[in-house]
């Protein structure tokens, strides 16, 4: 399927209908998931109603990491096969992943505030997510800093893969550090045993985020390809 889509023209034709469908799907799932999460799911026995932020926070965490995995895959393809669409896909997905990470951090802070009594707490998971967010920022900044698009794509790809190696190491280090400094973890996303009734809205929101990621990435890719076409046309006009 990827070989079929590898042709930019075919990709544009595919994404012309795929992006709106994914977006519509995302809207439907959000429309289902959010009311379900807010009103029709049980409160946590410990935290009460504040647990409802989990339904926004946790899928954002999953898919910010999933987006980085996508970035790493696209970077690998970019370096090995030097395919333009892989570069476009990587650059398109990064801001989406970064925003998901930011949502995770902000909602994590909001969630923790009543529990911790403070607007931010340096627990293991939040700290690792913060490093992921900074990694995203560095990746996006590198793309913007280099004028030659092809060179930017390859250098960013190298950086992304290096980051992919670094992130598990950071996760391990931060977990080590947090057990050193905080023997008891205050925040648990739904507890070690997730109540079955929480699974439904959680997975729905998870699906919603995934479709949203897909839709936004495709839309960004389309915008980037349109931009390139305009630039090539202007270049040709200048040369003729």
């Amino acid at each position, binding site marked *: 399927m990827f070989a079929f889509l590898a042709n930019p023209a075919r990709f544009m034709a595919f994404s012309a209908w795929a992006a709106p469908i994914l977006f519509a799907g995302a809207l439907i799932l959000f429309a289902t998931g959010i009311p379900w999460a807010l009103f029709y799911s049980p409160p946590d026995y410990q935290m009460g109603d504040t647990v409802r932020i989990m339904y926004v926070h946790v899928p954002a965490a999953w898919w910010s990491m999933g987006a980085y995995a996508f970035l790493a895959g696209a970077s690998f393809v970019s370096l090995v096969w030097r395919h333009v669409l892989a570069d476009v896909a990587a650059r398109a997905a990064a801001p989406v992943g970064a925003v998901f990470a930011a949502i995770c951090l902000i909602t994590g802070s909001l969630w923790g505030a009543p529990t911790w009594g403070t607007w931010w707490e340096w627990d293991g998971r939040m700290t690792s997510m913060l*490093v992921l967010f*900074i*990694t995203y*920022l*560095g990746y996006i*900044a*590198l793309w913007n*800093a*280099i004028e030659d698009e092809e*060179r930017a794509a*390859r*250098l960013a790809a*190298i*950086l992304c*893969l*290096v*980051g992919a*190696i*670094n*992130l598990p*190491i*950071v996760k*391990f*280090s*931060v977990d*080590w*550090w947090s057990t*050193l400094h905080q023997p008891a973890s205050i925040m648990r996303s739904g507890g070690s045993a997730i109540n079955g009734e929480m699974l439904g809205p959680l997975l729905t929101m998870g699906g919603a985020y995934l479709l949203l990621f897909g839709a936004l990435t495709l839309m960004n890719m389309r915008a980037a390809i349109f931009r390139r076409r305009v630039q090539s046309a202007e270049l040709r006009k200048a040369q003729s």
Partner: protein
Amino acid sequence: MSALGVTFKRELALLWAGGGALAPLGYFFGTAMLVPLAMGPDRALLQTAGPPLVWIAAALAMLAMLERLFQSDLEDGSLEQMLLSPTPLEGIVIAKACALWVAIGLPLALAGAPVAIALQAPVERVPLIVLSLALGTAAFTGVGVIGAAVTASVKRGGVLLALIVLPMFAPPIIFGASVASGEDVGAALSILAGCALAAIALGPIAAAAALRLQAE
């Protein structure tokens, strides 16, 4: 002399001509000086927070030196000549990184002794702090070359370099600061050594890949 040897020698000479470790050491001392100015001279507070802050100061001082590592080679055409050497570029990068560590990292580690004492670290912990800084600056150098290589073509890319490299500095800082605080020193030190080895082994590979792209 081999390509590795001449590269190491040349890099040392260039660093020396550029002022040597004077600027990074000054930066290190200066940052450390700001700590009590910011926190107040309360001994108990400094004793808890001070030693780990030595690590932050050392990390920042190394960052300042990384920016120039490959930029001039790219601009004056030296990088192209390195690509024509029988010695692989990865090796040449390791030679440059070693020179950077010997000229800057090691002095920073040694300077960590007076700084740690000034920031109220217990005297018996100071040798371990210096050892951990030596390993840590080696780790910083290993991952730092990646950032330096990737930003070599960006004018005034120092801030971008810092942004890129900081997530990679996090693990050495976590374990190094733990040694400085005297917590779980044995485990922290061995993991820190592992970080340093991994950084020196893998960093130059990624850096060389990026440099080949820069030379295009």
